[in-house]
């Protein structure tokens, strides 16, 4: 299915690091996570909001990525490399460079695919799975704890160095919509995995952060 997004950005500003550290500390002290930092914990909306604020804002430069996609039809995962750009208005521009060239854009509610088969335009809101997936990505990009909590049950595993957040769809899309697993180090998102079933998944790893 689609598009994976990551935002990674290195903290260059010391004040930002201090702020993040304080926020994470605050989060740790004020939540059940404080008692078991390594175990996966369900997050309330407020806890999620506190955590999301520790993450960096999405970078404006193109982020190189390597994506692995698995299907029951494949012997081995399909490997794709390309670049991902996230615009200030939330628009996503994913360019696959290898093994073929294809550009996938999400503008407003429209998915535009351009490649060897011409140009195709698809309504992004055309089914519930898409909508759930997009809600997850948009929630992460916008650090919108309210939207994420409404659409997903969120759990977080966190250590001093890394964290893993699982977004399990709620409601009538719980069975069909994919689970989103975001992994990061400190304030940066480094991996995004989308699982639709055991044999159908995709994992995107961001090879380097934006300067």
């Amino acid at each position, binding site marked *: 299915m689609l598009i994976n997004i990551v935002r990674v950005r290195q903290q260059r500003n010391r004040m930002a690091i201090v702020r993040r550290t304080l926020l994470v500390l605050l989060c740790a002290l004020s939540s059940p996570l404080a008692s078991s930092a390594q175990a996966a914990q369900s997050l309330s909306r407020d806890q999620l909001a506190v955590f999301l604020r520790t993450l960096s804002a999405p970078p404006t430069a193109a982020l190189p990525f390597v994506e692995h996609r698995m299907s029951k*039809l*494949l012997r081995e995962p399909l490997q794709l490399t390309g670049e991902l750009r996230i615009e200030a208005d939330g628009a996503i521009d994913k360019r696959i460079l290898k093994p073929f060239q*294809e550009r996938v854009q999400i503008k407003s509610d429209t998915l535009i695919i351009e490649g060897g088969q011409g140009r195709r335009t*698809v*309504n992004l809101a055309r089914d519930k799975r898409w909508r759930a997936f997009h809600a997850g990505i948009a929630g992460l990009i916008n650090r919108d704890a309210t939207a994420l909590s409404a659409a997903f049950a969120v759990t977080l595993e966190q250590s001093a160095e890394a964290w893993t957040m699982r977004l399990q769809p709620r409601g009538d899309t719980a069975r069909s919509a994919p689970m989103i697993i975001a992994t990061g180090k400190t304030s940066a998102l480094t991996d995004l995995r989308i699982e639709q079933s055991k044999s*159908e998944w995709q994992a995107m790893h961001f090879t380097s952060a934006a300067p």
Partner: protein
Amino acid sequence: VVSVGSANRWLLVTALGLVALTALTMSVLKPTFDLAYYLPKPTSEQEAVLVERLGQGAGARLVFAEIQSQSADASAIAATLKETLAASPLFVRVENGQFDLGLSSFPPALWNGRYLLADVDWTVDGLRVALQQRLQDMSSMGSPEFSDLMAADPTWAAMRAAEGLQFSGMASELRWSEGEQRAFMVLETKAAPFDLSAQQDALTALRSAYRTTAGTDQGLALYGVGVYSTMIKARVQRESTWLGLAATSMVLLVVFLAYRSWRLMLISLVPLACAVLGGMLLSTLLFGAIHGITIAFGATLLGVVDDYPMHIFSHARHTSAQHSVRRLFITLLGSAGTAMVAYLALALSGSRGLAQLGVFSLGGVLCAMLVTCVLLPKLIPSISDVAIGAQDTVPQRFALSMRVWVPGALLAVALIIGLGGLRWNDNLGDLTPLPQELLQRDHDMRVRLGTPDPRYLLTLTGGTVEEALRGTEQLTAKLGQAKAKGLVSGWSSALAVLPSEQTQLRRRGAIPEAAVLADSLRLAISDTPLASDAFEPFLKDAVNARTQALVTPATLRNGVLGDYLDSHLSRVDGRWRSSVYLAGIQSVPEFTEWLAVNARGALLVDLKMATQSLVRSYRERLLDVLVIALLAIAAIVFWTTRKLRRFLWCMGTVLAAIGCTLGIMVALHTSFTLFHLVSLMLVAGLGVDYCLFYSRPDVSRTEFLDSGHALLACSASTIVGFAILGASSIPMLSTIGLTVAMGTAIMYLMARFGCRLQEKS
């Protein structure tokens, strides 16, 4: 002499008889709204297509839904509506731009016949290219359902066949939404657009599903021929109900003021009621069903019978009703006879619709005459013998002046010539009560969603289905070139579900044997990450397709594909006609020019022009009939009047009044339509009635004054009744109302002031 008791008993019997007649009529009444019923026999291929496709075309069955939501995602509402309505038997298809990537999303006939409905390159290279494309698709659209579909059909044959059915297809850039607040849908109803009852059911189901989904009625706007038909029907019903009530009340008030009698006021309704019921009964019995237009126009034409009882009432003020009938019978017969001759001409015109209108009106007038002459005298109690004996019986002379009708005729001619002659308007669309903005919005929706323009289509015919389909294949191949030149943006044809046998045999023959296909697939997969055993479903289906029966109209008979085929392929007069509906014609002249060079066998049908052509034929036929009727009417008027001077006065007055009305209506409405013509037929009927009564020979002063009283009451009631109809916002009702009211007033004034009593000393 009729006593009050006897009259009351007869009144009760009449009331019961009317109830029984109404019940009988309603029990056999079979109304129809098939417009083709009223059209004359087509004289060209364009008209033939129009008559056959009227209300059946793909573009005419579409309903466009625009969803606007401030609080929820409009696209989500559209998606839910699609899920809900796709299972409804009222809709052939429901689209919101979404095509589900799953096996269950394809109609079974399409899925099973996919390798016959779409071309597939079965070579190793062809399969390799297909697999590479699917791998790309997987990277952007992969899902468990996608994998199932790809395993069964990596060639995407079913998808390409299904795209042929869609208005825009997946490759389209057409927008089905604008932001989160606006979304668009296209629904095709199973019912024809003029099957108003079924259209209403479909629209109610749509609105109900929207209410359930969105939680409100607000935010849903619907467009399309069926929507407008039901909208117009509702509006016509609403307006005609209150206008009819108002007109009837006013007519009854006029009758009451004229005769100061509740009994006469009620009795005046009896001949008209019997005329309408009798006309409906006779038409239904003779034709099997009665058309809505027949009832509407027929009831208008029967307005003439409303005068009959009033003649009796006015004269019965000074004598008995029976005596009045005897004295007036010849004149009444002349008046009714002229109307019946005109309607007989319609009945024998050869056009099915006009014939029914003629029979309806003829039967109605006959019923009204019988009731007026036989039944009415029994319902009116006689006045005292003294009064009867006191009646003035001295015959008087009358001066029938040419000083009114001759200047009137000259004025009419001058008026019509001065206004540039009579301009016929055969475009019934100009009379639509729909706002222009709504029609523009309808056009915008069709352009946005790439749906067929209901105005244009290409047709070609063949002696057999195969011949028609082969011609269509050649035509659509050429249309591809036209699309590349930007002359047309798309089309829909029968080929999406039924290619020619020749093409199907070629496709079936191209499917390799099992071993060869497995080998080709193995080679195609070899340099991909795909698993070698992933495509077992595909191999099995492809091998089965090698011996599969060809797709035929019978294969598709039931279900969505059958409905689609019916609207694109039809049998007419022993030949098969294939219709290709066009979308987005940029320039009709350029496209016509291109067509003349590149696709000579195809006919571009402009349904709007064909409609106008048919209406013109209808009008010309009607005028021919009326000319013959006029001669017959003149003969009857001559028989009734027995004197050349009286005959000339009658015919001159009627024609001059009709001419003046014509001139004034042309000045007011700039052009002349069928509705004016039907209205003038009624005015002419009333005019003959007025003139015959004013010019009755050998009448006493009392009788002359009674005739004047009756004609004043008749004309006043007609003018008041039709003037109220003229206030309607519906152009058709307004045209009929104004024309009849104006014509009746002119007719009455010309007859009244053209005749003067010269009392004998």
